[in-house]
């Protein structure tokens, strides 16, 4: 009974919980920067720690120590709490992802819907963050974030629903279990996988779609006014969202921690690294699209493809 709670506490705070994810986030950012650097014939972070692996941690600590300015004309209350809110909304869905065993820390019927809701909430918070800091660049950045949300929200949710329909349940753990019994839902639903990856790139505001914080046009979009601790929290939230995106792809389409060899985090991490490689590859291969390209592209191509995928599942009755 006592060991039960302690074991649960350890799971939440230590292993598949916060601490593990914290270092996984920094490791992912480091890996992303190294992969893109490798593509571009350069080294990437080198000096902090072996092969520069502690560079994201160093950046985080540096930002924490920097001066935290709250401009006078800024809408104080939302400006202060949005970074912290963004971080919590980025971390909480991660507890529903099965990393060790077949079932995650929190798994109930419908946690997929909760994750979808939280992800659209982060987009809303990005909009409010930009709007609250009443700087001209950040206002335009927040409008663009809002527009981008309209574009990728529907195809992303449709693509996430695909595996849930075929597995007949709305809980990610059950979807993962279903995939182990049958096969990875990547094979029957390649379209869903592609649409989800593209939409997650838009959700993470990565290069082809980093329109809300396009630094060559509007300085750095909605993040312009944040500095010091707030900026550190926002960047950490972005890293956690990257982890969330990649682990979503892994658990929904690549069969979670199960693999042909044995159940353990190793298989999860292997598939996870594959997803990180795919996303970094996309980042290095494209120029930044304009907001109207993204809107037109999403409504003309992504949404119909996602709908087609749903119909295919129904027709083939998988």
């Amino acid at each position, binding site marked *: 009974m006592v060991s039960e709670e302690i074991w649960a506490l350890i799971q939440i705070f230590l292993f598949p919980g916060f601490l593990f994810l914290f270092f996984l986030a920094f490791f992912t950012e480091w890996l992303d920067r190294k992969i893109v*650097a*490798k*593509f*571009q*014939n*350069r*080294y990437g972070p080198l000096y902090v720690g072996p092969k520069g692996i502690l560079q994201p941690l160093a950046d985080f600590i540096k930002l924490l120590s920097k001066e935290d300015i709250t401009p006078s004309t800024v809408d104080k209350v939302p400006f202060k709490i949005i970074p912290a809110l963004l971080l919590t909304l980025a971390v909480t869905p991660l507890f529903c992802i099965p990393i060790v065993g077949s079932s995650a820390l929190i798994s109930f019927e419908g946690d997929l819907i909760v994750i979808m809701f939280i992800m659209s909430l982060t987009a809303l918070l990005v909009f409010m963050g930009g709007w609250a800091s009443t700087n001209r660049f950040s206002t335009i950045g927040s409008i663009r974030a809002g527009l981008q949300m309209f574009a990728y929200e529907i195809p992303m949710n449709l693509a996430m629903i695909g595996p849930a329909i075929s597995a007949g349940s709305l809980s990610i753990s059950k979807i993962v279990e279903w995939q182990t019994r049958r096969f990875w839902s990547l094979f029957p639903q390649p379209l869903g996988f592609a649409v989800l990856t593209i939409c997650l790139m838009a959700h993470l505001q990565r290069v082809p779609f980093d329109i809300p914080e396009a630094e060559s046009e509007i300085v750095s979009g909605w993040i312009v006014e944040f500095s010091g601790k707030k900026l550190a929290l926002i960047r950490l939230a972005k890293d956690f969202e990257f982890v969330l995106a990649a682990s979503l792809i892994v658990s929904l389409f690549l069969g979670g921690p199960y693999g042909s060899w044995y159940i353990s985090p190793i298989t999860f991490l292997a598939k996870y690294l594959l997803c990180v490689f795919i996303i970094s*590859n996309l980042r*290095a*291969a494209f120029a930044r699209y304009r907001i109207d390209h993204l809107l037109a592209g999403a409504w003309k191509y992504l949404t119909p493809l996602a709908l087609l995928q749903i119909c295919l599942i129904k027709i083939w009755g998988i």
Partner: protein
Amino acid sequence: MEGDLLRNVKEKPVTLQFPYERKEPVERVRAKVSWEIDKCIGCRLCVRVCPGDAIELIGRGREAEIRYNVGRCIFCGECVDVCPTGTIYTTKEFELVFNNRREMIIHFRRKKTRRD
């Protein structure tokens, strides 16, 4: 674009890790200027020709003393071409960092002869 990306993964990075790996200067590089003061006859030609007014000549004739301000020098090599006795030559040292302005002025004095 995709094919080239993957091909580049194999190649070695092009960038140098500067403080540890350095690019050795080219054979014709013209960096810091310096004098063999013994051959100098104090003709003041280099002072007049220097676009950046970086050279000062103190004293007259044989025992002249050159005060060369690296900060003002634009490393064009005009003084090297104009010097009649070939006392001025350019070195290959181009990493010139100084802590304060006084260090930037380099003096070229003749070694004290036995008389004084």
